[in-house]
């Protein structure tokens, strides 16, 4: 942090103190709150002074800088200042009291932060409560301060400031006929800032809505429940009418329903369930504290919130509904969206990565609980692997001897670092077809990788285990060879994960970190089931056909006619005709049912000897509103890697086409789903998945170029320049790690920060903070997930947090519904463009990615990007976004 930025960062911290009153970091909201406090100028000054003193004190004393900058240490001092100024008349005595109070609240914030923070709980406004009580009790006998009168003689204050006109205006606003329900709600919100007027409440409510739709809806719902309860209890219940206590319901509900718990239907229930508890606490604590002459202030909210959060912490089996916020992002929306995507994307973080326990390609012959012959019940989460040839046979020759089997005596590897826990290797291999039911597991190695995480490798060859119990092994070390011992009629490898070190322990479902899977030759699995191959037996159930007419003299020789089964829900399918003498050999058509969520049809034709490597056709069904077809042809070894053909079918009767070739790296080329379903089963890189039966799996071949370019060790820095402004100073992006050892890229020019993670097989960004106009944001979206293995043509997809959606109206609508239903889906897809014929590990790689936002069946592309990676670094990034194109070049700083 340089000196030039320390002054603004000081003011930012002070401003954040205001936002923190509502668990926010929204500076616009903070400014609104600051403005509202100044409706009583003395209170406004006292609050601001309290916050500023606390921030200055925290910085001087060297308390946690992150918390200081977030205003977490100073918002209690701010509250103390506001409260004191509303109790005592302005003057030197009050100034002194505010200074002492701010200091005390800061010390208590740090102390309670350490104590409660260590238990995973927030300290809320407890420091403010303790400080204010102490000062109220202590200042009476010590100081004999005059009571504050400002809020009584407010008309005189207003007159002094603005004369009769302002008095008229102030009274007009005060006398505005607010509906009583709304007025009570607004006063309760205003009371957080010790303001008792509806206008202040209205400003706070507006600011709260600006900051968070979820927090706003929680505050409204909690208020309605409290209001309903007070209506049931009768007019004597009071409490709600006392403006300065009504805030307790709202803030407690926001805290337990949206801030410290990930917002969901369950969290809303939890928040609303907290309201009756707050009502009780409010009545009880007010009565109790009255005896001491102390106001209850925000104590009921603090007690409720801590109670409702602490019991969640103490659960033995945390449910899926009420999830405590793992990383506080100071916005219910950000917390929710990050959680929703991270739960899927980063579920494996912190888990021990297990890799395939063999080299080369093996077929999974028995998967998890797939009804296989031996993997049953408690032992169901196990995998069997064997090596098969192109004909699907696992042996050569007669297959009568174990040595005829491809898998026999092949090395078996440690799937992760660990310690050998158990070795059995004295059991002789069975003859082919025999099983040893007495020694079910045969020769076995059990490895301990972490407390409660063991892997078992069984049916090893007799006396093949080179390791001993207690020996340390590294991932990839040979721990034996494949054999045919135990309940094994033919050589294969049994692999399972278990929680205990014994041979034959019950199994635990645990995914493999990464592997390349080639589906069985006949398509299977959910993503294939939707699309059926033309001419395949699945298509025989057709009942109606749709025939495309061929215009005369059009030179079209043949047409493949596709059938559309009736009532299949299949959208109309456009069929490509094959011109005569075109050399076109094959064309595959795949239709995807509309209600599958993928309302598109893909056609792929591969002309013979045409020099065109691949052609993808994407048709959009008619009722989608657009009757166009895109054809993307990618000629081999060409500078023009892609071409679009826009076909206008159906009503024109004539298949008109025009070809628009786009120059390489225009940013448009990646726009289509390049690499969409292919005619052949294509190997896919899988992350944290379990192989399914029939799949051939192998360890991925990593791409050295990508692996090196996306390694980003701390201290690594890139200089980024725009091509159209080569003389402008470069932006420096440098890699740092935070207090939790999480790496991030920071742009020195804009202050934007992008967190990233990954392993040997994949790079991904995890979070972005900062200006969305920054270049770093473009990279965050362009390289959101990059597989580091070489699998050209493979489509990698991922889901963004909703925060990347630019449309404010859409986002706000989604925000309100987000805890219950999410209809906006920002998606990411990336494919490696075929660039060079040679497939060596260090070659230049071109990646094309696409960001799209889908909602209610519509999909809108928001960014396309092309990333050139060569010589072990990111070299170029071209981004097409909202009509603007950005072309950036990169160089390694200091290289």
């Amino acid at each position, binding site marked *: 942090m340089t000196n030039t930025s320390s002054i603004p960062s000081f003011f930012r911290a002070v401003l954040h103190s205001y936002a923190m009153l509502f668990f926010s970091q929204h500076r616009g909201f903070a400014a609104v709150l600051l403005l509202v406090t100044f409706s009583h100028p003395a209170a406004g000054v006292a609050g601001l002074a309290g916050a500023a003193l606390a921030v200055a004190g925290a910085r001087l004393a060297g308390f946690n800088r992150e918390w200081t900058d977030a205003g977490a240490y100073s918002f209690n001092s701010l509250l103390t200042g506001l409260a004191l100024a509303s109790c005592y008349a302005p003057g030197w005595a009050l100034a002194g009291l505010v200074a002492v109070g701010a200091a005390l609240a800061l010390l208590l914030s740090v102390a309670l932060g350490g104590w409660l923070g260590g238990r995973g709980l927030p300290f809320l406004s407890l420091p403010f409560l303790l400080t204010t009580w102490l000062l109220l009790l202590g200042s009476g006998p010590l100081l004999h301060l005059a009571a504050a009168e400002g809020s009584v003689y407010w008309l005189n204050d207003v007159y002094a400031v603005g004369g009769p006109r302002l008095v008229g205006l102030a009274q007009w606003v005060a006398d505005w006929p607010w509906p009583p329900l709304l007025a009570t709600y607004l006063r309760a919100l205003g009371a957080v800032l010790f303001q*008792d007027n509806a206008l202040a409440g209205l400003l706070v409510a507006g600011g709260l809505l600006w900051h968070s739709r979820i927090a706003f809806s929680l505050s409204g719902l909690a208020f309605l429940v409290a209001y309903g309860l007070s209506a049931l209890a009768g007019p004597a219940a009071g409490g709600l009418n006392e403006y300065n*206590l009504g805030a307790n319901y709202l803030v407690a509900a926001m805290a337990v329903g949206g801030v410290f718990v990930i917002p969901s239907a369950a969290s809303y229930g939890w928040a609303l369930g907290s309201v009756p508890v707050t009502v009780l606490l409010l009545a009880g604590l007010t009565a109790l504290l009255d005896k001491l002459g102390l106001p209850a202030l925000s104590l009921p909210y603090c007690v409720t919130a801590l109670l409702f959060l602490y019991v969640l912490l103490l659960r033995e089996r945390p449910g899926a509904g009420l999830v405590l916020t793992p990383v506080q992002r100071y916005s219910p929306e950000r917390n929710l969206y990050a959680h929703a995507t991270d739960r899927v994307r980063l579920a494996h973080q912190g888990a021990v990565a297990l890799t395939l326990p063999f080299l080369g390609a093996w077929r999974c012959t028995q998967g998890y609980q797939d009804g296989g012959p031996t993997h049953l019940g408690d032992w169901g989460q196990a995998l069997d692997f064997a090596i098969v040839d192109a004909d699907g046979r696992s042996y050569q020759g007669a297959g009568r001897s174990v040595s005829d089997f491809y898998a026999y005596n092949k090395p078996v590897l440690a799937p992760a670092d660990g310690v050998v826990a158990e070795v059995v290797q004295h059991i002789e291999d069975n003859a082919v077809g025999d099983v040893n039911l007495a020694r079910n597991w045969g020769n076995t190695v059990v490895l301990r990788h972490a407390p409660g995480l063991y892997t078992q490798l069984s049916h090893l060859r007799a006396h093949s285990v080179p390791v001993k119990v207690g020996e340390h092994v590294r991932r990839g070390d040979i721990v034996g060879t494949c054999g045919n011992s135990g309940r094994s009629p033919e050589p294969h490898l049994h692999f399972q994960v278990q929680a205990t070190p014994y041979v034959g322990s019950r199994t635990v479902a645990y995914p493999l970190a990464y592997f390349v899977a080639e589906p069985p030759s006949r398509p299977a699995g959910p993503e294939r089931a939707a699309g059926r191959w033309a001419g395949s037996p699945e298509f025989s159930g057709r009942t109606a056909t749709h025939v495309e007419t061929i215009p005369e003299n059009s030179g079209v020789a043949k047409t493949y006619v596709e059938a559309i089964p009736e009532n299949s829900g299949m959208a109309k399918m456009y069929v490509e005709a094959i011109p005569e003498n075109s050399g076109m050999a094959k064309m595959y058509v795949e239709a995807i049912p509309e209600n599958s969520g993928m309302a598109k049809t893909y056609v792929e034709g591969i002309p013979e000897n045409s020099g065109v490597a691949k052609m993808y056709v994407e048709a959009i069904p008619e009722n989608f509103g657009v009757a166009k077809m895109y054809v993307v042809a990618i000629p081999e070894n060409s500078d023009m890697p892609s071409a679009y053909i826009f076909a206008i079918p159906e009503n024109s009767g004539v298949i008109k086409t025009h070809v628009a070739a786009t120059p390489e790296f225009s940013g448009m080329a990646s726009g289509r789903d390049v690499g969409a379903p292919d005619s052949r089963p294509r190997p896919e890189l899988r992350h944290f998945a379990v192989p399914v039966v029939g799949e051939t799996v192998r360890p991925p071949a990593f791409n050295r170029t990508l692996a090196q370019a996306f390694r980003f060790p701390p201290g690594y820095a890139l200089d980024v320049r725009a091509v159209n402004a080569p003389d402008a100073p470069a932006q420096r992006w440098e890699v740092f790690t935070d207090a939790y050892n999480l790496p991030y890229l920071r742009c020195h020019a804009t202050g934007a920060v992008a967190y990233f993670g990954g392993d040997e097989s994949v790079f991904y960004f995890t979070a972005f903070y900062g200006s969305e106009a920054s270049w770093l944001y473009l990279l965050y979206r362009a390289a959101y997930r990059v597989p580091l293995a070489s699998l050209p043509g493979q489509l990698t997809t991922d889901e963004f947090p909703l925060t990347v959606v630019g449309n404010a109206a859409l986002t706000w609508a989604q925000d309100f519904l987000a805890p219950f239903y999410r209809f906006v889906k920002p998606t990411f897809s990336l494919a490696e463009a075929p660039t060079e014929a040679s497939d060596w590990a260090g070659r230049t790689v071109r990646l094309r990615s696409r960001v799209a936002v889908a909602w209610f069946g519509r999909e809108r592309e928001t960014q396309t990007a092309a990333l050139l990676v060569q010589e072990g670094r990111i070299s170029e990034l071209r981004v097409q976004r909202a009509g603007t194109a950005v072309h950036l070049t990169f160089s390694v700083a200091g290289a």
Partner: protein
Amino acid sequence: MDLVKLTFSAAALACVAPAAARAQDQAAAFASSYAAEAKADYADAIAPLKAIYTGTYEQNLRLGWLYFLAKNYTAAAAHYQKAVEQRPYAIEPKFGLIKPLNALGQVEKMLGLYTDVLKVDPQNTQANYWAGVIYLNRKAYGPAARYFERVVNLYPFDYDSNISLAWAYLNLGKKAEARALYTKALLIRPGDAAATAGLKRL
């Protein structure tokens, strides 16, 4: 409308000869009414006015007052009501009407009249204070405080509004403000029992 009617009738009267004589009768009737009222003989005060009664604003106002003194509150309210309708902007008949309504216990109508007065004269101390008192009696402390605040801002050293606003604040949980006002009430009336009791409740 009433004003227009009156103008027309006045013009008509001016054109007719007996008009001057009638004016003389009215002056005499008012004079004798005042004399009777001074002796607390309200029946005699009412009689001359009834004799010359033509339904003017002045007659209605006077009769309302005299009927009120004679404890005939219904008749008093009826005459004041006529006066209120004849001069809708005027505050005078409204305050007059409030007296018999108060005797009849018609608090809702009284509150309506105070708010009517405040529409014309938002700073009217009487209307603000008594509207506050009505809300205070209804335990509606929020609106009560709003009316008392105006009085206290206009008359910061007035005992009644100070102590009433303090009570409203106390019930609204605004204890700091209540303390300040009770302390002020003790300055106005040292040793005041109500203020001392209020301070003890804080």
